[in-house]
């Protein structure tokens, strides 16, 4: 990640935030708008960040993974289903059910990744086709089970979708409580402090994703594991010669990637909303691949790129909130279908490489033949 790239990311985010502030300022003070938009950006960037991390681990080890979308979708379904089963069928508490749901989602991601690893590493299937198989399988599997388990003959739920036990709670980081004495008697200061605090009050997976970004960076660039991972992705032959087990390293990294994708899936149905609908991932697995590419296969770069996409989604949400105060000459911003194009067009723009060429790992996508 060079400064040109970070500059571009900052520019886009400023433009997106600026648009919302300019339109919304007649309704709310800028500080409130910016903080609420930041909070939304961080939250909605979560699955993209995790998806991009998934891609980073797979591709640094030399396995292209376009099945992230399918892994996310399957994990979202099974995480949600697991939580429902624990709660309704096994009668567990709400907290335990939800936690186990997250666990199931991660496990599902790992299992889907195992399939990808078997296809691409053991059977040496073309990795893009293997990923497509995962995506198609995910759509078929979740669509079928979603209907069969709830509406099929002999369903324990007897023809209706039961309520999920709920979503993960927001974790309150007590900035307001700590810094309140600094404000003294000023009410404005207190209002701003509360608004700023809201940016940091995120749900567990969102916070976890950010921690995982830095953790992944450390693992990849400062540990023996990371060195070996990058070695099998750049020059598997050389790695093999010095005694690194190429297939094993690739398998494990793809599995780790699958777990990240699984956690991203849990975001959709356990952290964001407590329900599942077919195709709910809506292309975010693919957008996270673009984030990974723009981030030049580094965790921190990929995170920064995910934030751009998060911000463009936050723009869409805020344009709906400020719908009634959009000036007539900007009326196209009222059309959610048009504003909704932003992340997709941004992705294509970024992939042109105008903002600087990126270099994938040298052996990315190449099966290793001894």
């Amino acid at each position: 990640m060079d400064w040109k790239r970070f500059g571009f990311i900052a520019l886009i985010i400023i433009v997106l935030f600026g648009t919302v502030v300019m339109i919304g300022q007649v309704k709310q003070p800028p500080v409130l708008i910016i903080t609420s938009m930041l909070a939304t950006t961080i939250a909605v960037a979560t699955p993209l960040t995790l998806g991009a991390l998934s891609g980073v681990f797979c591709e640094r080890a030399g396995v292209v993974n376009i099945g992230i979308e399918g892994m996310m979708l399957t994990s979202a379904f099974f995480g949600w289903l697991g939580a429902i089963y624990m709660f309704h069928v096994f009668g567990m508490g709400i907290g335990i059910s939800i936690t186990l749901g997250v666990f199931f989602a991660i496990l599902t991601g790992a299992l889907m990744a195992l399939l990808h690893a078997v296809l691409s590493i053991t059977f040496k299937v073309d990795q893009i086709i293997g990923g497509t198989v995962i995506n198609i399988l995910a759509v078929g599997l979740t669509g079928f089970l979603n209907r069969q388990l709830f509406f099929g003959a002999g369903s324990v739920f007897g023809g209706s979708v039961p309520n999920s036990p709920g979503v993960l709670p927001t974790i309150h980081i007590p900035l307001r409580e700590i810094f309140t004495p600094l404000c003294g008697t000023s009410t404005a200061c207190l209002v701003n402090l509360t608004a700023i605090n809201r940016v940091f009050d995120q749900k567990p997976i969102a916070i976890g994703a950010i921690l995982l970004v830095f953790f992944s960076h450390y693992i990849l660039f400062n540990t023996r594991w990371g060195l070996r991972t990058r070695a099998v992705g750049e020059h598997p032959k050389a790695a093999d010669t010095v005694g690194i087990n190429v297939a094993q390293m690739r398998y494990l990294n793809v599995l780790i990637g699958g777990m990240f994708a699984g956690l991203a899936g849990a975001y959709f149905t356990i952290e964001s909303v407590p329900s599942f609908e077919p195709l709910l991932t809506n292309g975010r697995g693919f957008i996270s691949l673009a984030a990974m590419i723009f981030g030049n296969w580094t965790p921190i770069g990929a995170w920064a790129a995910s934030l751009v996409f998060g911000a463009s989604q936050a723009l869409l949400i805020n344009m709906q909130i400020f719908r009634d105060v959009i000036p007539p000459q900007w009326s196209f911003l009222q059309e959610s279908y048009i504003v909704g194009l932003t992340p997709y067009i941004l992705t294509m723009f970024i992939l042109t490489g105008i903002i600087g060429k990126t270099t994938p790992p040298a052996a990315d996508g190449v099966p290793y033949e001894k």
Partner: protein
Amino acid sequence: MQSEKQSNSLTRQILQSVSDASLVPFLAILTAVVVGGVIIKLVGGDPILAYRGLIQGSFGSTKALSETAVWATPYIFAGLAVALAFKGGLFNIGAEGQLAVGAVASSLVGYALPEWLGYDLPIVIHLPLAIIFGVLMGGIWASIVGALKAYTGGHEVINTIMMNYIALNTTSFLLNGVMKDRSPTNVIARTPLIADSARIPPIFDGLRVHWGFVLALLVAFLIWWLLNKTTLGFQIRTVGLNPDAAKYAGINVKRIIILTMALSGMLAGMAGTIEVTGLNYRHELGFSIGYGYDAIAIALLGKSHPLGVVLAAFLFAAMRNGATRMQFLTQMPVDLISMIQAFILLFVAADAIVRYIYRIKAKGERVVLTRGWGG
């Protein structure tokens, strides 16, 4: 004597190559059907009854056969679209978007052109116009991705998917706005009905199968001819096999990439166009969803050969068509079909698995699409 012997060995060679090419897909289908049966059993259904319903519903009567052909028509076009791109070394996941754009474009010509002109057009002018416009829009939509690939290296896999979402958003915008059917009872996002002069007539009275089906078979032959008997086809295949070699052989690789994508998009656009002009007589939002993935599965199952694509399209059409009957007999949801299809694709794509199960030796070339990401 000598020539008889030669022709004999030639026939045997052809037979050998056909059986080689179809053995693995056949075993893949067989394996997927068995896996599907196990799943049906696991969720408490009767596999035999389900499959009987599937076959009855797709081939059991003249009407069922006609409906299978109706389903097969867009599948053939869309499958050819992906197959042609595969031949050129490109992976077109965007058939869905190109199909939607084609469908919107030809329904616009279908319903709005007579209104703009103020008089009715004869079918010999209106229908070809509607089809050509839809096909062209599909081609233009896809060639954007081709141009990005050729000039910037932006990978077509991500770009075609992004174009799918852009197409979906744009059609939602149009079908909920300027192109919405304004009839008083309508609440869904769809266009008005196209004029009679823009409709493809049915082949037989009382059956829905229309001349678009014959057109699909014709186009399949045309694509075979293009790929195997023309210079352009040779160039497309050469670029697909080895772009570097193609470049040194003096082929304009960039031009071929854009052209391949455009042709592929035109075929996908044709799928949408034919559904509008031959079957639904309008475009409705959400109709195109799922076609892109089905098209990939069909192209892979058909080994990217036009004849294989036609056969695979028939198989998928029969499954989709028979699913309703299966649901009626066994209460198995239609989505089961998607899952069996996913398994077919899994076993076809990972032919190594099938070879491993049935102990068949590997033969022929392997599909290679992953040449690293551009950017």
